[in-house]
């Protein structure tokens, strides 16, 4: 079995109840596994939520995590999306301080990563970029020298291409 650690995206269907996220997080945290990213929202069935989380572990550990998660009464299913053909996206909001000098560079980066300006007032603007995790990382690297005021990332959302 693969000993090498890599990112795995787990997609869970769970009961949409107050305690469930804590159970899922505790199952990982209690065994010393860090959750790298986390996304939760209700599905088409309001009683059921989808949790998409990513962890960086070797395959044997991922298998153990999957088995521990599926034991939880409130968890209906666990699948490792990294093993399937999957579309993955992440969204980022970045607030930039605008100066006469950086405006042109920012516009170029927005264009390159197909982002858009969500709001602009006076000397600040908020940019939205939705892309792959790698592109988001690159966009941040490019924006950093231009003065990032603050930012928020959603973490990865992912969906299988087909059933």
């Amino acid at each position, binding site marked *: 079995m693969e000993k090498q650690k890599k990112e795995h995206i787990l997609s869970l269907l769970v009961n949409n109840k107050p305690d469930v996220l*804590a159970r899922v997080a*505790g199952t990982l945290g209690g065994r010393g596994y860090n959750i790298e990213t986390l996304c939760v929202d209700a599905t088409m069935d309001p009683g059921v939520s989808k949790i998409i989380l990513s962890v960086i572990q070797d395959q*044997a550990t991922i298998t*153990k995590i999957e*088995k521990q998660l599926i034991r939880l009464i*409130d968890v209906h299913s666990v699948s490792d999306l990294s093993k399937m053909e999957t579309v993955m996206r992440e969204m980022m909001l970045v607030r930039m301080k605008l100066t006469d000098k950086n405006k042109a560079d920012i516009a170029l980066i927005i264009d390159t990563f197909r982002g858009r300006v969500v709001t602009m007032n006076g000397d600040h603007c908020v940019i939205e970029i939705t892309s792959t995790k790698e592109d988001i990382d690159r966009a941040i690297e490019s924006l950093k020298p231009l003065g990032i005021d603050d930012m928020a990332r959603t973490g990865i959302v992912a969906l299988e291409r087909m059933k």
Partner: protein
Amino acid sequence: MKLKGSQIFIKALEQEGIDTIFGYPGGVLLDIYDELHRSNLKHILVRHEQGAVHAADGYARASGKVGVTLVTSGPGATNTVTGIANAHLDSIPIVVFTGQVPTPLIGTDAFQEADIIGITRPCTKHNFQVRRVEELAKIIQEAFYIARSGRPGPVLVDLPKDVMASMTDYEPLPPRAKELNSVPKPASKKAFYVLDLINEAKRPLLLTGGGVILGKASEELREMARRTKIPVTSTLMGLGAFPAKDPLWMGMPGMHGTYYANMALSHCDLLIAIGCRFDDRVTGKLDTFASKAKIVHVDVDASSINKNVMVDVPIVQDCKTALQSFNKLLMEQDFSVTDEQRKAWFDQIAEWRTNVPLTYCNSDEIIKPQFVIETLYKLTKGQAIIATEVGQNQMWTAQFYPFDEPNTFLSSGGLGTMGYGFPAAIGAQLAFPDKLVVDIAGDGSIQMNIQELATAVQYKIPVKIAILNNGFLGMVRQWQELFYEKRYSHTDMSFAPDFVKLAEAYGLLGLRAEKPGEVEAILRKGLEHPGPVVMDFKVAREECVYPMVRPGGPIHEMALGREMAN
């Protein structure tokens, strides 16, 4: 029919067939206790909530039914945590009901409020807080179902005071759909494969665990082992599932296991593990564990498989179903094996057994703890239910009291909870009022739940306590002797109460033996006494448990006595 939450609570318990509750009242439980007063449920008032959970646990282990505890909010609830964690590690089906402050007060740091849902999340199989009286009956049914199905475990149900006091329409729920598939499935491909492995194996071994007892599969295990003539070793949790008087019995393996069981594990070429989870106390160093064997692992919980030991044939199934379908296959295939085919393996085991039997050095001067247990076995003819505390008393019992039937050995295996045995014995005695129930204790652990003596006296629960009193926290002292050059840091417990006087103060019979010659007479007197008894045996202070595998060491390297250990 309009009923109050507290009335629905009683009805839902009755519907689950519950007749005994171990509990302790408190402010938020007043509505329930008022109903209990009117009901036919037997309520045992313990003296500490931890005792209530261990008693429910002992009741469950002895009877195979779900044990029930009822405690109040805040400290009442937090006092149950050790008992719950104990049941969780040993997969014991219990339901713990905790009172809670009224729903509008939850989260306000109200008097006697504790977030018991958050606290017990990692040590329960599942927990619920009932927020509306309309969901009460359904949640209670669900709680019992979860506790006893699949891999059993503790479930906690938190009951806010206002929910218990509100009214709703109540209709008895239809019984929940049947939980376990009791019809054996047709032999799977894997069963055929296991059969091939057995045919090829020259040195096969069965390793069974608590799952066989929890899954009520002892009969099936006996049939399989005898038909295939495979020797059986069992973890602490599985003792009794296979009769110790059977010639195929090898004793317990692991840290304080028999020499021959550990040697067999290290030399077998096929290991069939059933309902066990490869605890570190059993496997020792993982790299050398059963390293010559193909390993088959049957367990109802997929997360137990390939967790510690990587196996060749994983079978996720409850032990009973798996063994039934395998036995059926043996019959259909007309499987048989001759003694001749097993001769080399049996001879090897016999040689190990003769060379290094399980033994100890008895004395005429001073009582050896092992001698007390052997005498207890002789007098009870192995017919008693035995609970233990944790430490040396527990290991000596596992070694020197052979168990022939399941559900007769109650011991805290996973969590290793001192103070477990006595309340567990109380629970077992309530499940079987006519059986002899004995708690084998140490002088340290008996003091951890000693307050339950009052419970035993109040309800005339005739549990017999045998204290192996060496004035030390014996097992920790043993490690200090072996690994810390006899620096006995804070393990000397010789400052202790006079247990005979203590028993008398609680209104029990107290007895003491100080010389080996008195042991049998004191045991006989204690066992024949109709009520609860405390028997204080002043035993050799620095006796060690042997064999002993060094922590983290390979299990075939055992210290067999003091000289080898040092």
